[in-house]
């Protein structure tokens, strides 16, 4: 029994034990704090990285725009210088083979980093001379159409080659008065087209912006763009707005960049960083931090486990000890290892266990004592029962002896009185015969008294045989017996319906027999006797039966005496009887747990009542 209890309680203990829950709780809290901290730090770092990338992109875009603007201006200056060469003017004024050759020599002084093509057009829209450097460049750069104005044109593209086109006016010499010639005076146009994609400057510029950044140069209209190596798509941003912008690339990544204007051209420069590049340090930071956090969680978990064990182990021992005591092992104690609160708890626990044990011992002793007392009481009771049975047997023997021994002498008295009367009738006088008759009557009466006394004793002694009893049947039965002795008297009977009750049938029959024969007896003086039997409307815990007659009645002053043994309110001369009938009625009804009472008036009839409980609560 005890072992079962321990096994049964050990299972839930493992799940709900403080031993596991306390460290787990602390560890969970630590992890939550770390995760929150890492989340905030990561966001912060990312924000900073974005900011610095934006700053960098803007600075670089502005710087590159400046460089490119400068470079374009330098080249225009150079083109104008060549356009002022006498050989070039001559070429337009007097185009001849000689002039062409001289002009080509002058034009060839224009050196560039990559392939270029130089064309000279007259104002009539005729290409006067065309020069490709190196000669293969003509394949890369297709012939252009006749120019109409000077300046830097939009970038153009041929296959994978992107090139620029610059147009300068070829002006006549300044007038003698020093007035500079204007574009209205132009002799023709010098058109220089240079590839950008093949320019070695790309390397230089890429190095300048650094790793991870991407450069794009193109028209602000968005049609032709290059990364200075190949033709590319323009970035999907609003090219009309300079400054910072972000977009999602075809690779699914976000890109952050800055757009700057190249002054004097329809071009813009774009420097961008993909988010992957921008936030790479943040991810690295996160990785390092997560590793550190894991290490911290591991170490702190071990420390917490050790510390928690120091607190919970004594508690666990206390719990086990409490369970042992609850299971009946009252001598169980816990070891005291510390002097803090837990140590004091252990001390208190041991003191309490001591008290429980001594109380238990006291209780057991008391139980033993009580059991002994109870056994003693039981023996005493048994003794009493035995004694009572002995008394009962004695009583039986007494009544047997009374019935037998008292009746015999009475019989002898009447018998011998009769014999005397018969044998000596002649010598006895009238007086003597009256004496003998009186003697006989007295003895006979005493015999009846003895019989009644014995029947009363039997009514008290015989055990009740309880069963459901139909009172209607019983009344009919008794009525038949009573009417047999009416001797022609007229009696008006009224029977009401009676309920079924529970009781001893033959005893209840005796009750009804007594009441009905009394009613008949005491209404003898009436010319027409009326007897009524019924129940009172008392639908509660008991059934009340009444027997009413219109006979001699009685004085209510003596109502209490009616039910006494041998108590009579009328003389034997008026109504014969010994006075045992109603005593028997009361005794039987009382043994059924009921009551008896009567109502009456001298010469006004009498009503006798008896009640029977409806539930089986009656005492035996």
């Amino acid at each position, binding site marked *: 029994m005890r072992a079962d209890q321990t096994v049964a309680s050990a299972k839930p203990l493992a799940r709900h034990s403080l031993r596991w829950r306390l460290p787990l709780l602390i560890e969970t809290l630590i992890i939550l704090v770390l995760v929150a901290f890492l989340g905030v730090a990561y966001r912060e770092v990312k924000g900073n990285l974005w900011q610095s990338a934006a700053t960098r992109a803007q600075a670089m875009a502005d710087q590159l725009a400046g460089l490119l603007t400068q470079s374009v201006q330098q080249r225009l200056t150079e083109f104008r210088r060549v356009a002022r060469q006498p050989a070039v003017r001559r070429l337009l004024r007097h185009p001849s083979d000689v002039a062409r050759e001289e002009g080509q020599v002058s034009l060839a002084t224009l050196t560039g980093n990559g392939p270029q093509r130089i064309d000279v057009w007259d104002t009539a829209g005729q290409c006067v001379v065309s020069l490709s450097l190196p000669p293969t460049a003509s394949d890369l750069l297709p012939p252009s159409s006749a120019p109409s104005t000077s300046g830097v044109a939009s970038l153009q593209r041929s296959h994978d080659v992107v090139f620029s086109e610059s147009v300068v006016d070829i002006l006549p010499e300044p007038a003698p008065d020093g007035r500079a010639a204007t574009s209205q005076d132009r002799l023709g146009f010098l058109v220089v087209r240079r590839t950008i994609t093949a320019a070695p400057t790309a390397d230089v510029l890429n190095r300048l912006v650094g790793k991870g950044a991407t450069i794009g140069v193109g028209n602000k209209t968005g049609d032709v763009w290059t990364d200075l190596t190949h033709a590319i798509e323009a970035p999907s941003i609003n090219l009309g707005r300079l400054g910072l912008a972000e977009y999602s690339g075809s690779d699914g990544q976000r890109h952050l960049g800055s757009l700057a204007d190249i002054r004097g051209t329809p071009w813009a420069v774009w420097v961008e960083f993909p988010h992957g590049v921008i936030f790479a340090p943040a991810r690295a930071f996160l990785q390092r931090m997560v590793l550190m956090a894991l290490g911290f969680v591991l170490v702190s978990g071990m420390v917490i486990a050790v510390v928690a064990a120091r607190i919970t182990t004594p508690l666990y021992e206390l719990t086990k000890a409490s369970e042992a005591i609850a299971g009946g092992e009252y001598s169980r104690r816990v070891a005291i290892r510390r002097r803090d609160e837990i140590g004091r708890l252990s001390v208190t626990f041991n003191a309490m266990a001591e008290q429980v044990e001594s109380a238990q011992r006291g209780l057991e002793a008391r139980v033993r004592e009580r059991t002994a007392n109870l056994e003693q009481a039981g023996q005493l009771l048994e003794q009493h029962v035995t004694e009572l049975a002995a008394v009962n047997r004695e009583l039986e023997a007494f*009544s*047997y002896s009374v*019935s*037998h*021994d008292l*009746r*015999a002498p*009475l*019989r*002898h008295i*009447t*018998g*011998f*009185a*009769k*014999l005397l009367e018969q044998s000596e009738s002649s010598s006895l006088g009238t007086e003597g015969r009256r004496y003998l008759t009186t003697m*006989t009557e007295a*003895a*006979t009466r*005493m*015999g*009846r008294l003895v*019989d009644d006394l*014995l029947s009363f004793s*039997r009514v008290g002694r015989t055990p009740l045989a309880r069963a459901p009893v139909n009172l209607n049947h019983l009344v009919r039965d008794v009525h038949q017996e009573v009417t047999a002795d009416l001797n022609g008297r007229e009696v008006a009977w009224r029977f009401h319906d009676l309920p079924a009750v529970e009781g001893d049938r033959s005893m209840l029959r005796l009750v009804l027999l007594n009441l009905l024969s009394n009613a008949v007896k005491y209404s003898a003086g009436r010319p027409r006797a009326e007897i009524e039997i019924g129940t009172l409307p008392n639908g509660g815990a008991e059934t009340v039966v009444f027997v009413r007659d219109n006979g001699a009645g009685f004085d209510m002053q003596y109502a209490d005496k009616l039910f006494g043994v041998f108590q009579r309110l009328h003389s034997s001369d008026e109504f014969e009887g010994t006075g045992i009938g109603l005593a028997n009625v009361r005794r039987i009804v009382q043994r059924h747990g009921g009551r008896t009472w009567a109502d009456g008036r001298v010469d006004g009839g009498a009503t006798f009542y008896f009640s029977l409980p409806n539930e089986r609560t009656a005492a035996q």
Partner: protein
Amino acid sequence: MMAGLRHILLAEDNANDIELMLSALKTNHVLNEVVVTRDGAETLDYLWRRGRYADRPLGDPIVIFLDLKMPKVDGLEVLRQVKQSPEFRTLPVVVLTSSREEQDLVRSYDLGVNGYVVKPVDFPEFVKAITLLGGFWAVVNAPPPRR
């Protein structure tokens, strides 16, 4: 004594009762001889021809009138032995007693009694009862055949 009439055995310890009984029988002209035994032991000795009855001349009684309260062996024991014996179990036995104790009534019938009479206190009643008894058992009733 008339020849051929079988006798009545009266087992009764009280002399007064014996006298009243005999008187009542005589009054009613029951002519059978009445043999009286004064206690249960004597009654049994008489029936089984033991002791002083070892050589009693008469045959067996036609009926036994048996009192219950008797010295030495009581009436119920006599009844038991008679009704359980092979030789007398058919012999009619009528209990004559002063008491109407139910236990006696029940036990007597259990043992196979042929009649149970409570002697009335009133003498004329008593005589009437004895007249009926004597008339029936000694005259009217056909006894079992002699052994």
